[in-house]
């Protein structure tokens, strides 16, 4: 991703994050979060992770944030009344993250991670030749790679249903459990006789 675009989306994302923490109204916080996640999704796309970026928008801004907003409105939450956050808390909330960032900077100072290798048409065509043999010649992956475009979704799908098949099933069960848990939690408590 070109550097100016990167900074643009990074600033959008961080501004959204700060918005979450700074906004008094929970609804405003939720909207800040949407902004933040849109910026994040753009960064994902910039990293050639198109599918994850789309997923981020669909799942988070589409489903999760709606759920948040729904709950906030359901509970009819007002602004926090005693907004004057105590100074020690504020200080702790600033110093601890700051220390973390400082430690991160210190790590970056001593290490050189280098730049990304650019993904170009030629590199993708070259990558096609290195694909494992069990991917058939007439598959979408090979076709698109030969044309010089990245078949992101196809590659993820291929990986998901071969190598990560078992974790996928487990995640399915987890979702089922979560569903059942939500239902049982939302049921009205009937006091025992």
């Amino acid at each position, binding site marked *: 991703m070109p550097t100016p675009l990167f900074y643009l989306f990074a600033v959008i994302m961080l501004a959204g994050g700060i918005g979450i923490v700074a906004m008094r109204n929970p609804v405003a916080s939720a909207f800040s979060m949407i902004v933040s996640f849109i910026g994040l999704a753009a960064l994902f796309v910039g990293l050639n992770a198109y599918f994850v970026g789309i997923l981020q928008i669909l799942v988070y801004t589409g489903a999760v944030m709606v759920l948040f907003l729904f709950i906030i409105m359901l509970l009819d939450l007002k602004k926090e009344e005693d907004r004057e956050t105590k100074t020690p808390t504020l200080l702790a*909330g600033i110093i*601890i*993250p700051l*220390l*973390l960032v400082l*430690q991160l900077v*210190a*790590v970056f100072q001593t290490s050189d991670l280098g730049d990304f290798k650019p993904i170009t048409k030629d590199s993708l065509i070259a990558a096609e030749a290195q694909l494992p043999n069990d991917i058939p010649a007439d598959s979408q992956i090979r076709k698109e790679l030969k044309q010089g475009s990245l078949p992101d979704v196809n590659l993820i799908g291929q990986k998901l249903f071969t190598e990560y098949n078992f974790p996928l099933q487990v995640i399915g069960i987890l979702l089922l459990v979560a569903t059942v848990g939500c239902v049982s939690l939302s049921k009205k408590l009937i006091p025992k006789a």
Partner: protein
Amino acid sequence: MHPSLLLILPLVSAVVIHFFLQQKRASIAALVGTLVTAATLGLSLMLLGSENSTTLFNWIQVGDFKIDIGLKLDQLSTGMMIVVSGIGLLVHVFSLGYMKDDEAKARYFGNLSLFMFSMTGIVLASNFIMMFIFWELVGLSSYLLIGHWYQKDSAADAAKKAFLSNRVGDFGFLIGILMIWGISGSVVFDEMSLTAGTPFLAAAVLLVFCGAIGKSAQLPLHVWLPDAMEGPTPVSALIHAATMVAAGVYMMARFFYSVGIDVIPECSAMTIAWIGGITSLFAALMATQQDDIKKILAYSTLSQLGYMVMAVGLVDPNAGMFHLYTHAWFKALLFLGSGAVIYACHHEQNIWKMGGLLKKMPVTGWTFIIGTLCLTAVPGTSGFFSKEGILHAAHDKSHFLFGIAVVVAALTTFYMFRLIFIAFLGKAKNKHAEHAKEVPLIMGVPLILLAVMALFSPFLGSLIPAVDGFHPHIGIEMNLVTGCSIGAFILGLAGAIVLYKEKESDPLAGNAVMKVFRNKFYFDEFYAKLIKVFQDLVAAVVHFLDEFVINGLVVGGLTRLAQGTGNIFRAKMQTGSLQNYAFLFGAGIILVIYLTVFL
């Protein structure tokens, strides 16, 4: 006929009676017990004189150490089996009458079978470990039978006392067995022989003798035997007069002959002899002032056991075993006779409330007198021959012990005739004694049979449990020993006639010395005091340790430390506030990153 039947039969009988023949079928239980004992006697007679050792099965094998359950048959054990099963059978028969209306007849006969099993085990044991197991088992059956009427506090206490006193002795016994194992490398009697001058042998002998002190009620553990008279009288006859208490003497004889009679160190042998002699003297003195017919006999048993132990200590176990053999018959006779008297007098045991019983109960009376004559060593009776052997042994070794033995003989005559004069002659002093009737046949027959055995046992040489072709000296030759024996008898008889003939109450009752005898030299009181003082002392020390060191410093200190730090954390750190936790959590992460990445 396999000798193991001797062990199996009583065990089967005990199990069958205890588990299948409860009180409803008590008569069957009694019958089973008696028949099994009769079968045991038959088997013992068949095995008489056989000499071999059989191994029944291998019990423990660790490396080259092994313990077998085996049977050792020789004259010593087969002769002892005749005593055990013979008297056992007569006691069973007597019990059929004596315990006829008892509420727990089945339990009684079951325990009697258990005792027969255990006693057989001691007698036939081929090694010390097996003997020790059965040694404890007779202790158990003795406990059960003394406490047969456990509803009575005195019986329950007596049972406990017997068990605990035996524990003290058995502790030493076990250490002694281990020492012998260490010295000779074997616990099997056949492989135990040692050479003279073996180090630690003297201590080992004395420790093994501790077992005999407990079981044979020698000083200072004699206190349980008189109290054991709380049990049914046939039990006293079988266990606490004829067989179990003699097991100590039997064990010592077996032990002495196994290691070799010549290698026993002089010092330990003399210690044993002196303990026997002193026990015999003290018990005889105590017996002179007892009023309970069974207590008199109990102290008499103590005294005679002292004789036997003295013989063992004088390194003449054969003499001791011969006395054991004759004593078993006449003392069982005396006890069963006293049982018959007690039965006839409606459980009255005080001799001063009896009197004139000879006329009313001629069978009991005359057999009792026969027993008394044997016990007091009237020339020609069994007691005379066996006591003479011991007196000879004492005379050869120590004149002092010989003197004690003669004094004891005189005292024996004195207290036994005191008993005869008060209980069997004179006038009835109580309505129970006045209405006393002769006991039924089933109790009379054992008395007569025992009287026959008491008179003729020395002449049945092949029955005598002894070692190496022992032939008792039968016959009367006038020499110093015989003279002393007869003189002692005459002295004792004269004393009894002068003091007790036709007397209504004890003329010596007020005497201060007699009071000491009557109170058994205050042994019980002394033990009670000793144990109390000792226990209080230990308890005080333990209490201090527990209260201040363990509770105050160790446990209390730890709890206070944990509580204190816990309180600090609870009050200061556990605020329940999510922000605080998040803050601490973040600080922790930073610390971890710092420690892992930057250090």
